[in-house]
């Protein structure tokens, strides 16, 4: 029992509960002194729950031990630069500083949340299959639908953080991230964030969708809304600090000879992504914080009755939340660019253009947010300039597509599982990309906005830009992390089950959306005749879930029983494949020097990296 409680994660969770109660008790005590109501419908009052959740987050981190080194530094004590992890799987539950361990922690958490969010989707998808309400109330539907959105977003943020954490230091030849302790902190703060987010369900639910627009989100009958905001706010810090760490790592820690245009394309994509998450995330944090304060203190930021402006929230919110979709997809597009040359055995077509297009998308992405607000009643003169800026995003995105086609053209492709997911990702993302411009031109958007067309469109971009490349990356780098391969047959089955089902799902969504199906509705008008479509969509959704289940079984099985693969499985030029798998604890024993272009496949005798024989890495 004592050993059980010495596991950092368990200790953190215990402290979480203690912190929650302590925080709530403090506020309740203050309320007692002020003569206010002590208890609400959900036990504590709303301020008590919010403050409790906040204290719980901090006490989770303190109890877990991820901040111990900082406490020492603050007291003026020396901390060791050297950090050894315990053997075995226990290190994944503790405050490890190794970027590879943290990367895997992120990835596993992302997969867990993917399952949670997916189950939510299956539940309300089943409800939608038939007209009328069968087993959910409309309130429960709204809660599941809202949390599906936000849980998936957090899952994606953790997923990309997992990929970037694991891969970027390996790809650029660093021993670790620039700030290993901050790195561990960024991961572990996401754990209480996820708990807070899910706590909103038993505490009354969320009825606003993931966007949380006031005044609806400010109406006081839903306490869950507050936990939702708090959870997202905390998760935002994970994203901000992770992005900061990554930029510093890429800028400061590259191997000798790795000039900007010899960086792996994934490093470029990570930089572009991190620039957005570093800066724009603050705005969603701020906008949610303002709604929280509006609820707690009656401050009327977005309350028209108090001189506030509900549309202001939408501006602040979308200033993050549109660039955020580029946060989700840019790393995935980087993975596609990274893997294509390996499997086509050809250089990446137009390397510099692809690298620059990532930055282009990220920067233009800051100027397009109001295209989510064409119908919102904002100043009308803003609509046309935002239409132009939004359509402009198509240009760097197009450069990526054409360059990928250029890479595939005349390439000797072989379709093992990672490549299948890359190709699937390209086609799915293409559909997402092509269904975008109609939403960007104001007049057609007036019809398309807030319909199922939009739902289909963004699921295409999220799957093409993140889910497919994410799976590709997991299949591709699994041998690097474990020294074993994932089962190829199950991998192929996963792909061939998921892809067609997904096409049916999103194309079906787009079709009924155009015909008048609104998004976020718990039930639909029988007069529209959508029942058959919804039954098909539901079946497709279950097939996708089945394919992911196959993937998870494959993953667990292969960790123990996969075919042993310690060498350069994919015959890649990238440095991490030049050393045996699994990667040793402190990365490269010998530092390497970049001596060539990263993707010069097909050029006889060329090399990307060369290990410096005389030198020995210090760690």
């Amino acid at each position: 029992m004592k050993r059980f409680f010495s596991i950092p994660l368990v200790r953190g969770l215990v402290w979480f509960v203690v912190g929650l109660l302590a925080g709530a008790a403090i506020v309740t005590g203050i309320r007692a002194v002020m003569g206010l109501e002590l208890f609400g419908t959900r036990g504590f009052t709303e301020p008590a729950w919010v403050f409790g959740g906040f204290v719980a987050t901090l006490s989770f981190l303190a109890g877990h031990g991820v901040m111990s080194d900082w406490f020492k530094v603050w007291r003026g004590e020396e901390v060791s630069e050297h950090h050894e992890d315990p053997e075995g799987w226990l290190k994944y539950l503790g405050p490890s500083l190794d970027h590879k361990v943290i990367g895997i922690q992120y990835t596993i958490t992302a997969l867990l949340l993917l399952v949670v969010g997916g189950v939510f989707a299956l539940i309300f998808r089943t409800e939608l299959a038939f007209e009328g309400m069968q087993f959910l109330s409309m309130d429960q539907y709204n809660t599941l639908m809202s949390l599906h959105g936000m849980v998936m977003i957090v899952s994606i943020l953790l997923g990309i953080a997992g990929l970037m954490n694991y891969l970027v230091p390996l790809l650029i030849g660093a021993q670790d991230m620039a700030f290993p302790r901050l790195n561990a902190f960024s991961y572990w703060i996401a754990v209480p964030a996820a708990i807070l987010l899910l706590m909103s369900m038993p505490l009354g639910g969320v009825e606003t969708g993931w966007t949380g627009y006031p005044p609806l989100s400010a109406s006081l009958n839903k306490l869950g809304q507050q936990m939702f905001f708090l959870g997202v706010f905390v998760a935002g810090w994970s994203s901000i600090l992770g992005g900061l760490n990554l930029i510093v790592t890429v800028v400061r820690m590259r191997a000798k000879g790795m000039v900007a245009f010899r960086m792996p394309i994934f490093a470029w994509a990570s930089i572009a992504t991190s620039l957005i998450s570093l800066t724009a995330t603050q705005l969603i944090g701020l906008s949610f914080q303002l709604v929280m304060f509006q609820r707690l203190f009656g401050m009327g930021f977005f309350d028209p009755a108090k001189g506030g402006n509900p549309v202001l929230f939408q501006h602040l919110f979308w200033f993050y939340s549109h660039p955020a979709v580029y946060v989700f997809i840019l790393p995935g597009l980087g993975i596609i660019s990274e893997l294509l040359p390996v499997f086509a055995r050809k250089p990446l077509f137009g390397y510099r253009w692809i690298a620059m297009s990532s930055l282009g998308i990220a920067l233009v992405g800051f100027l397009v947010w109001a295209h989510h607000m064409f119908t919102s009643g904002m100043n009308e003169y803003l609509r046309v300039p935002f239409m132009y800026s939004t359509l402009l995003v198509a240009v760097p995105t197009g450069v990526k597509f054409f360059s990928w086609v250029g890479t595939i053209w005349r390439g000797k492709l072989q379709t093992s599982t990672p490549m299948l997911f890359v190709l699937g990702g390209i086609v799915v993302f293409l559909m997402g990309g092509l269904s975008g411009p109609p939403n960007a031109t104001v007049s057609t958007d007036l019809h398309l906005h807030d319909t199922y067309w939009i739902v289909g469109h963004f699921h295409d971009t999220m799957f093409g830009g993140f889910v497919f490349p994410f799976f590709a990356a997991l299949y591709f780098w699994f041998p690097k992390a474990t020294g074993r391969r994932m089962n190829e047959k199950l991998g192929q089955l996963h792909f061939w089950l998921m892809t067609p089902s997904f096409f049916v799902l999103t194309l079906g969504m787009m079709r009924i959306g155009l015909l008048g199906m609104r998004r976020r509705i718990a039930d639909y008008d029988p007069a529209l005749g959508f029942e058959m479509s919804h039954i098909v969509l539901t079946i497709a959704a279950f097939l996708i879930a089945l394919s992911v289940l196959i993937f998870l079984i494959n993953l667990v099985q292969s960790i123990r029983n996969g075919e042993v693969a310690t060498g350069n499985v994919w015959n890649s030029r990238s440095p991490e494949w030049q050393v045996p798998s699994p990667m040793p604890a402190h990365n490269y024993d010998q530092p390497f020097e970049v001596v060539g272009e990263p993707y010069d496949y097909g050029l006889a005798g060329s090399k990307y990296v060369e290990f410096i024989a005389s030198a020995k890495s210090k760690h």
Partner: protein
Amino acid sequence: MTHTQDKSAAFGLGVVIFIYLAVLTALEFFVAVTFEAISILVVIALVKAALVMYYYMHIYQLNAENEGDENSYAFKTGTNRFGLWLFLLSDAFVFGGLLVMRFNLLAMTRPHLNQTLGLIVTAVLLISSFFMNRGETAMAHGDRKGFLRNTAITFVLGFIFLIGVVFVEWRLAAEEGLVASFGNTSVGPQGAVFYMMTGMHAFHVFTGLIFLALVWNNARKGSFSAERHWGVEAATIYWHFVDLVWIFFYPALYLIGKLS
């Protein structure tokens, strides 16, 4: 140039910059009360910000060549410095968002506030930045006593600022009818905007004070030297950043716009 001359030159520069900043603040106030020229106020704020960022926060050091290999203190300080500046960039977006909110909700009006008090707290924060600069300069030249003395003064001034805003200014504002509207529907958004902006800034001042206290305590124990004092540098940059934010918040809340 000898070591002492170098040090007194650095102190001298700190004084000159402080005088510039003080004059600009006075000019700002004068411009605001005599003619409503927002563009001039914006330019003055930008000039002040540039002075603080260059001479007090030493932003140019981001560009410095780092000697030594990846494991040297100098290299690591360079990495840390870059990280800290990125953090400040990120944080600046919060304050930028608050400014957007202020101009969206209040447009060209401003809340009823006590001008004298506003000028006093602004001056206090500015003077604290001056002493912070002296403290850091002292430490950079190995003068631990000088650092402790100047940082203690900074801490006290920062504390006065915090008291001045949260305990005096908030109370006076509430008496002027500027309430955050606890359930009161008749008031405009002035109160909400004012308390949110000053509150968020005060929270940063508060964390800055904790930071200063930790660094002061570690310096007392002798953890820092002329060569190794990243902690001091970080606390200094953070403290100046808090001042930098106020350079924009002060005109936004006190000077720009007509009284509502």
